[in-house]
């Protein structure tokens, strides 16, 4: 965190100054480790084993927060008899379709009066069919194919927290003794994650592991809370989402959710990544975590609402949220008579993530590409495939501050150097458009705390530079002008859009505040809304993103508030604005006990005031304001009325924190340690080597390596992980071109231990070539004890550290680490696994010209790599 988020890290240092213990777990000793109380080296790709070990410690030693666990988690919930765990099936869960490689969720269910899912019907179009059964008809197979596509599309992010598809009133056993209650299932599931196993799999010595167990449990409970902070070291794996799930289980067991000083904090790759999922740049989401309609099962607005909303909790208002969004987009054209233009929304037919887009470029179906501040030619996994894809486009628009590699690969990229491409053969028409920097435009950043902070334009953009807002608005205007006379149905969604923003300044930039007003929404009188609870399903309200409703309450830009901390409470509600409803801690009802009293004075945040009949406290209560703790919903209650007064997790159908996730994840209701796609080690936790439903992009340019005990695995004996340095920013567009930053880290390097340097003959400050089945890159060598050899499964493992900032352009240049990465993806969110790969490293520079590809092919041959290597389930 000190490495990549030095500004945010000031608060960790502040906490440390106030007595907090800082534990840092990382494959390499970083600037964060340097100021932490405890540093724990770990094998890249083994965190589920490590955190799973912590869960096992908490369960075996009864260190969980029992009152919290019983009241606020689904520990007591009883699962169906049909559910089978990895314990029963040697590493896979029940419902695995081995042919199509996806999980049926039918068996991951609560036992209750109704076995049928409460919602999310479309996600199980054939839920009533026996799964993977014999004697399938053509119809069965077609449904199965649709289902596979749907699984592959992932629905993990839909509903934000995975609120769908759990029955609100399942059978429970509050003694936690029932053999099929979640608590007992969890206990059995994690029993094998012993300190001995953690040591063998993750390389964390038992005494060090015991220390971490002690520190975390001693700092959790009524009076104390522990927070987890993670970044892309946790997400970029074929089991990335399950990494975070493991932490979620641990934090729920320890009572560290919804309480001050607790939680799991996601540090993002750059500014406003949180904002770009809230108002998404993702293919599978609409604003506010509404799922993008799917081609099968979301035919009409009513179908969508039936399939995507839930019976209880705030997701029961899905119709209100979607209709208000449609009204914001299509205004007067959206009427009850035309389903509020619901049919104007595109429909998904499968996964269309960035990597499928590259495949579509390669096969010629994707012909145009916009890059807004993105540099895939060096910044995306398997960078070579990205360039090959772009070379097959008709047109490419690159909007950036500087001439990044994605704008120039056609004349000086690596494939030009190797002779594989010639500029004159490339048909892609490339447009480069200079952009305004954040100082040259107004707008908001949304940070990891869901806090919107407004930034004001300081100067007009120089030269031809314009904001992305201006470009997009102008592009829309020109397209609409061209289509103005069109009667074609396909053009109507564009012609009917509300597309009339006022402009400001000498360059006539669209007014960002007007966009914020559209996002905030307005009522029938045109006045700004103050809360999403005002949203209506009848088309009388418009709101561009329901969770942001209120950001411009009273017509005031709440995100621009900057009252100093000295002038307000410690929660600082008047600094910026946090969604939803300016709440700073989500689910903060959990900071009080079931009766509504704080668990402890020290950790009080919100509580029930019986005299006033309301929830109160320094934070905005994340609960129905006047709902008493003793309220129990009557039978048949739905929506918000169905939220119990003692269930804090109001977005979940059952109001509970999920130790066991009955829905929302496509690769298992519980985390399990699987080896990375490419690993020098066999999985000793289960017979199953990899995440069985990981997503594999199979292409001749994306060959996978053998793993574990497979022949050829020893050709790639080391583990490599990519990371960032404080001095540079992501793919380098904002740092490699600046002298003051370039001089601080002037060359691409690799970090190796003295032991690996001796083993491979690598010299400090000399050159090394790092090789995978995709590519070979060169880097200067830094020999350092900050990279420590680990003992894994009884043998020494060396890890190679690779910063990924470099590329051929700029003031400091070097090979891009992303050349090495493959496209085995997390099946929930389609993120690549470049935080744990297997590689070889050799002294000296890489070959030039055609010899470079010859070297890579030689490695493929030596390892016996074919188109099926690494693709087994």
């Amino acid at each position: 965190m000190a490495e990549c988020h030095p500004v945010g890290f000031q608060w960790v240092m502040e906490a440390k100054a106030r007595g907090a213990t800082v534990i840092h777990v990382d494959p390499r000793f970083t600037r964060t480790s340097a100021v932490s109380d405890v540093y724990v080296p770990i094998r890249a790709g083994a965190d589920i084993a490590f955190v799973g070990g912590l869960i096992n410690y908490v369960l075996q030693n009864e260190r969980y927060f029992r009152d919290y666990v019983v009241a606020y988690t689904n520990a007591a919930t009883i699962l169906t008899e049909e559910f089978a765990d990895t314990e029963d099936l040697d590493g896979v869960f029940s419902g695995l379709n081995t042919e199509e490689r996806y999980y049926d969720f039918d068996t991951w269910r609560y036992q209750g009066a109704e076995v049928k899912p409460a919602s999310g019907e479309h996600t199980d179009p054939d839920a009533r069919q026996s799964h993977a059964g014999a004697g399938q008809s053509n119809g069965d197979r077609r449904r199965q194919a649709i289902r596979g596509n749907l699984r592959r599309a992932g629905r993990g992010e839909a509903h934000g927290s995975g609120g769908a598809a759990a029955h609100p009133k399942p059978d429970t056993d509050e003694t936690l003794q029932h053999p099929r209650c979640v608590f007992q299932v969890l206990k059995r599931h994690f029993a094998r994650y012993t300190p001995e196993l953690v040591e063998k799999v993750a390389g964390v010595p038992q005494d060090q592991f015991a220390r971490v167990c002690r520190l975390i449990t001693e700092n959790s409970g009524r009076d104390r809370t522990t927070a987890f902070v993670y970044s892309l070291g946790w997400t970029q794996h074929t089991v990335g989402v399950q990494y975070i799930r493991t932490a979620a289980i641990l934090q729920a067991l320890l009572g560290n959710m919804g309480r001050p000083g607790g939680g799991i904090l996601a540090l993002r790759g750059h500014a406003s990544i949180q904002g770009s999922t809230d108002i998404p740049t993702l293919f599978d989401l609409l604003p506010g975590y509404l799922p993008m309609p799917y081609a099968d099962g979301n035919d009409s607005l009513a179908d969508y609402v039936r399939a995507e909303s839930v019976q209880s909790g705030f997701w029961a208002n899905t119709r209100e949220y979607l209709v208000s969004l449609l009204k914001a987009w299509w205004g007067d054209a959206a009427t009850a008579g035309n389903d509020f233009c619901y049919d104007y929304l595109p429909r998904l037919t499968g996964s269309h993530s960035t990597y499928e887009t590259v495949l579509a470029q390669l096969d010629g179906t994707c012909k145009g590409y916009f890059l807004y501040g993105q540099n895939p030619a060096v910044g995306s996994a398997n960078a070579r495939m990205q360039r090959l894809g772009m070379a097959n486009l008709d047109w490419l628009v690159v909007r950036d501050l500087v001439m990044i590699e994605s704008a120039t690969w056609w004349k000086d990229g690596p494939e030009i150097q190797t002779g594989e491409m010639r500029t004159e053969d490339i048909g892609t028409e490339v447009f480069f458009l200079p952009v305004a920097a954040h100082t040259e435009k107004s707008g908001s950043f949304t940070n990891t705390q869901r806090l919107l902070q407004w930034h004001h334009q300081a100067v007009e953009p120089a030269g031809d530079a314009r904001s992305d807002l201006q470009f997009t608005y102008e592009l829309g205007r020109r397209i609409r002008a061209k289509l103005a006379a069109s009667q074609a149905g396909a053009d109507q969604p564009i012609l009917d859009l509300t597309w009339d923003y006022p402009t400001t300044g000498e360059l006539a930039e669209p007014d960002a505040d007007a966009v914020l007003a559209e996002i905030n929404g307005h009522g029938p009188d045109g006045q700004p809304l103050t809360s999403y609870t005002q949203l209506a399903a009848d088309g009388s309200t418009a709101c561009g993103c329901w969770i942001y409703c209120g950001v411009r309450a009273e017509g005031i830009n709440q995100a621009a508030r900057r009252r100093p901390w000295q002038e307000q409470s410690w929660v600082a509600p008047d600094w910026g604005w946090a969604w939803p409803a300016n709440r700073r801690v989500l689910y903060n009802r959990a900071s009080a006990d079931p009766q509504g009293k704080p668990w402890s004075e020290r950790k009080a945040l919100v509580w029930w005031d019986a005299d006033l009949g309301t929830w109160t406290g320094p934070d905005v209560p994340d609960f129905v304001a006047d709902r008493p703790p003793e309220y129990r919903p009557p039978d048949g209650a739905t929506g918000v009325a169905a939220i119990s007064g003692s269930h804090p997790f109001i977005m979940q159908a059952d109001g509970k924190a999920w130790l066991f996730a009955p829905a929302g994840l496509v690769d298992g209701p519980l985390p399990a340690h699987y080896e990375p796609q490419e690993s020098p080690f066999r999985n000793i936790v289960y017979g199953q080597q990899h995440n069985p439903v990981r997503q594999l992009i199979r292409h001749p340019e994306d060959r996978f390596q053998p793993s574990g005990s497979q022949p050829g695995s020893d050709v790639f004996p080391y583990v490599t992980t990519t990371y960032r340095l404080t001095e540079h920013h992501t793919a380098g567009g904002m740092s490699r071109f600046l002298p003051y930053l370039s001089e601080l880290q002037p060359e691409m390097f690799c970090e190796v231990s003295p032991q690996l340097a001796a083993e491979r003959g690598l010299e400090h400050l000399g050159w090394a070539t790092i090789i995978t089945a995709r590519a070979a890159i060169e880097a200067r060598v830094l020999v350092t004890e900050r990279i420590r050899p680990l003992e894994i499964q009884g043998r020494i493992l060396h890890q190679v550290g690779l910063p990924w900032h470099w590329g051929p352009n700029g003031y400091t240049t070097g090979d891009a680490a992303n050349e090495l990465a493959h496209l085995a993806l997390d099946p929930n969110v389609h993120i690549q696994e470049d935080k744990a790969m297997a590689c070889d490293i050799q002294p000296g520079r890489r070959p030039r010209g055609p010899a470079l590809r010859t070297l890579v092919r030689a490695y493929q041959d030596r390892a016996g790599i074919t188109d099926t290597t690494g693709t087994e389930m």
Partner: protein
Amino acid sequence: MGTTSPATTRNLFEQETGLTSGPGLDPSAVAGYPDHPPRVGFFTDTSVCIGCKACEVACKEWNNVPEDGLVLTGMSYDNTADLSASTWRHVAFIEQPAADGDGDLRWLMASNVCKHCSQAACLDVCPTGALMRTEFGTVVVQDDICNGCGYCVSACPFGVIGRSETDGGAHKCTLCYDRIGDGLMPACAKACPTESIQFGPLDELRERAHQRVADLHTAGQPDARLYGADPADGIGGAGAMFLLLDEPEVYGLPPDPVVTTRDLPRMWRHAATAAGSIIAAVVVACAGGRR
């Protein structure tokens, strides 16, 4: 800018005593600012430095200090290497390998800067008056007066000052004279995310520094110590003090810095005595010759 003109008054004290200042003396008053603001400086607490180098970049941005070369030094993450005419803040990275090869790896980071000595040799040796003491007690090079002789470079006991190869002049930290005159914090301190670099009145900083050392000792860090905080040291105390976690040498700092002009008066006295003796001997010899 100041309350009096330093260029004309700075040598009065020197002419009378042979010193620019002395232990316990107020350098601004000595330099001829009878009515001056409190002396200000830096307290750099290296125990909370995270090595982000924001200080280096902020300093260069504000002061227009040029980039000075893309050199991978191999000295941990330190590619700046040293203070110089083109580096006025420098973050040192020191990797201390574990003695037993197990566990206690330590990575020290420390942002170094001009010490703005109470007794500043650079000031003493400058023949043009380009180096001056400001009303804030800091030491600043005036670019338009510096003739590039380089005496200050060899006079500095810390190796802080360097001569620019482009303009030939001597350059170093000004403690952001132009910012503090406007009531702003120096750029490095402003940019530091963890308050490793603290700016303020020197007396307050010294108090804070002593308190911080005491706190760290209590917290089980017996290695914590102050550097440059003692007005009785060889430079009369620094205007930029440091909290270190190891011996100064580990950070590339001289353990017992002495103002290099300390012995000049005595040397001149010896020289004068010697010259006098020679003259006397010559006179005697001549007188003897007449006989």
